[in-house]
């Protein structure tokens, strides 16, 4: 009886973990093509009051995105043993000039700015910060036809308004926003 109950609880935990990893609050659109993966995503659901408060206070707000192309491993519901085939880091920044009431925004990849602009509307800033398009991931190994892959995006927003807990220093304690998009690679 105890064994059945333990198995049931384990199954529920695994199922809930799988549901969490399958959804997330970042919407990803990944398109595998010619051995590469092109993707776009938006993290509008991660836009929150604290971000707006920091922006309106003139604080530089940074959205760091870690984008990874992964192949599920032996324990796909945990994601710890999945192999990472490609990885890139992109960031968006926004700062509101409280004097002239304009937003200065920029996009960076690997620490280098590749786009910048100014906006007057917060909605534009929101789109700028939370939306990325045409990001290309080139895997280190060729994609295998009919194999399952997924794109995993983690967003870290800085600064944070809340005090981090002791657990937040652990690797698995810092993911606030994330998204996952699975796909099957079909070679053409």
């Amino acid at each position, binding site marked *: 009886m105890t064994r059945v109950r333990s198995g049931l609880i384990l199954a529920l935990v695994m199922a809930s973990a799988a549901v969490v990893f399958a959804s997330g609050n970042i919407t990803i659109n990944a398109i595998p093509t010619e051995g590469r993966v092109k993707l776009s995503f938006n993290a509008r659901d991660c836009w929150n009051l604290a971000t707006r408060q*920091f922006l309106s*206070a*003139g*604080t530089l707000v940074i959205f760091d995105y870690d984008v990874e192309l992964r192949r599920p491993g032996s324990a796909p519901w945990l994601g710890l043993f999945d192999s990472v085939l490609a990885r890139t880091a992109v960031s968006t920044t926004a700062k509101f000039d409280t004097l002239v009431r304009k937003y200065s925004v920029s996009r960076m990849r690997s620490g280098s700015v590749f786009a910048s602009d100014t906006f007057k509307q917060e909605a534009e800033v929101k789109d700028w910060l939370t939306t990325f398009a045409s990001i290309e991931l080139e895997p280190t190994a060729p994609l295998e036809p009919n194999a399952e892959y997924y794109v995993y995006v983690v967003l870290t927003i*800085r*600064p944070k308004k809340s*005090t981090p807990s*002791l657990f937040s220093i652990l690797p698995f304690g810092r993911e606030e926003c994330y998204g996952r998009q699975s796909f099957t690679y079909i070679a053409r």
Partner: protein
Amino acid sequence: MFRTSATDAPQAAPAPRRRLLDNPRIVTLIVLLLAAVMGGLFWLSGRSADIETRVLTDVVLYALLSLNMALIIALVFVLARNLVKLWVEQRQAAPFSRFRAKLVGALLAMSIVPAVLVLFSGSEILRNSAARWFSEPVDTLLKGAKDIASQYYTEQSAVLGLRADRLARTVPPAAVTGADEAALNSVLKDELFTMIDGTIEMYRAVPGSAGATDAALVTASESPTLSGESVRASADRLASRSIATGKPETAEEGLDNNGVLLRAVAPILGPDRRPIGAVVVSRHLGPEFDREATRASQAFEKYKGMELLKEPILGSYLSIFLTATLLILIAATWLGLYLAKRITRPVQQLAEGARAIGAGRLDVRLEAETGDELGSLVEAFNMMAAELQTNRAKLDQSRVDLERKNAEVDGRRRYIETVLERVATGVISLDASGRISTMNGAAQRLLGVDAGSLGQPARAVLEREDLRPLLPLVDAVEARTGRAVVQEVSLVREGRETNLATAATVLGGDGSEGAVMVLDDVTPLIRAQRVAAWRDVARRLAHEIKNPLTPIQLSAERLRRHFAAAPAPTQSLVGECTDAIIAEVESLKGLVDEFAQFARLRGPRMMPADLNALVDESLKLYAGVLQQGTLRIERQLASALPPVRLDSEQIRQVIINLVDNAMEALGGPNAATRPNGERPLIVVLTLHDVRNSLVRLVISDNGPGVPESDRDKLFMPYYSTKGRGSGLGLAIVRRIVVEHGGGIEVSGAQPTGTTFTVELPAA
């Protein structure tokens, strides 16, 4: 913990591992490290205001969190480890474990409770202080200053926009398209009068590359504080964009250390409502205003940013505080545990050392870790242990000496016992109560008692019928006169007489140490004396009897001759008498000869000889006699018999005497069959006793035997069981054997008969 003395290396226990924290350098290093970390924390808290908020909340905060996590783990580890050790020590009932647990508990409470109280109260104070950082007046003030500056910018931009729009409407399109600079300047001239430190640029649309429309400057006014050429490029871009989009626009351009340039552009529309040009109106705000406005804006932004980051900032300060508290806690906890250990360890060592000494390990020495009173106690313990060890060594030496002396005494005692056991003299020791303490084998043999008599009263043992003659000795001992009692005693047991020369001596004068009785078997001596007496008698007899025999014989013969002519009756009477006289004289002569031989037996002339050959030679004499008879002589001669030094003549006489006696005992050569059906038999055998280096000659018969009571008398002169003869045969045999250095014994044969055993020393 403790060490053993170097002099007792074999017993030395392996040197205990020195604890890391017993090393003063390590302790100093740790203290310095803690001090450095604490100093760093104080420096960090002092410089926290200068650290950028982002660094403080992102880097410092996470670093402190990590450090705190590590410190908490370290604290929990230190506490758990020591508490578990204390628990285990208590479970094992280790010495001083309860005392140590109490001490550790008290020290931990003294360090942890204040630290935790300070942490909580300090945290609360910090939180309350943080609530006052962001007050409503400051917020209002900063927001007001920022709003004023911002509003000014906004208003100036709006005014410039309106001005640009008005100018765009006022300017004649033809002047623009025709690039009539004079007409345009006249418009600008009036406008510039209403502007403070501003510039106006007018552009006309010109065809650009790839079908696009570009802006070409027609005319421009100069600012007294700003060179138009230095900022022309941005004006060109604004004009081009406005001509392209047909929309007005405002922009701000920061000038390096020269304030800010506010711009507004408005398209100039042609009759067909299409942009034919653009007007760019700019207002230069000086560096002083820009600086103040920027400061107001930055102060507001910083203030609001800090307000928003209040929690992380407070977290950073709390983390610093927590880190300091944890460091103090760890240091205090460790110090408490260390002090508890430093206090209890010497006492524990003393207890363990005392236990080790109690177990006999006197080489244990404790290591004084301090020079205080505990160190003095340890030194005193070591001195005590050394003293004990020295005394033990002396005792051991004394014990060894004593054991050696005991061994010597024991050896001497065993030697004396052995001597007493081997001597023919019987020695009996009595204790003070008259009980037999020891009795050597000779005494047991002489008295016919066994070792079971030991411990019994001597009187009870000697009450036996045959030992009663010895009771006067016991009486003398019990009388405790202190004088030795000497007497000769004759014991008769089983018909055999044993003559003992006895002496009893009381030990200790008053008999307090018991007494000693000495028994000497003087039977052989008595026998020898008797033999000597007999020899003397024999010699006298031979001398006194033999001399008159010849005249008697001659007289008898003379009488017979004298009465030869006498009447027949007389002659017959005389003849009978003289014959009787002569026969008796002859008999007396033979007797006298035997006595003379016994008395004058010469000493043996010994030479190495083969006893077996001598036996064969002697027994050949009987071959003829036994040829027709029923009696048989069987010889069983040992092979490889060593030569024996003997007088062949005398030993032959011994063999013949003994065989003759045996034949006579059996009834002669034609002896009848024995009652048990056995054939009359004489067995002559020789043996070699290698161990005693003896050669034995045994002559045994299956005749009727000799009663045991008569066996000792057989060798006495003039003793015969045959009722005839002189009785000197066996006495002579015995004398010959004794003079050969040997001995002769008689014993009964099985089932019947007599056995004579002659022992001669091998050559």
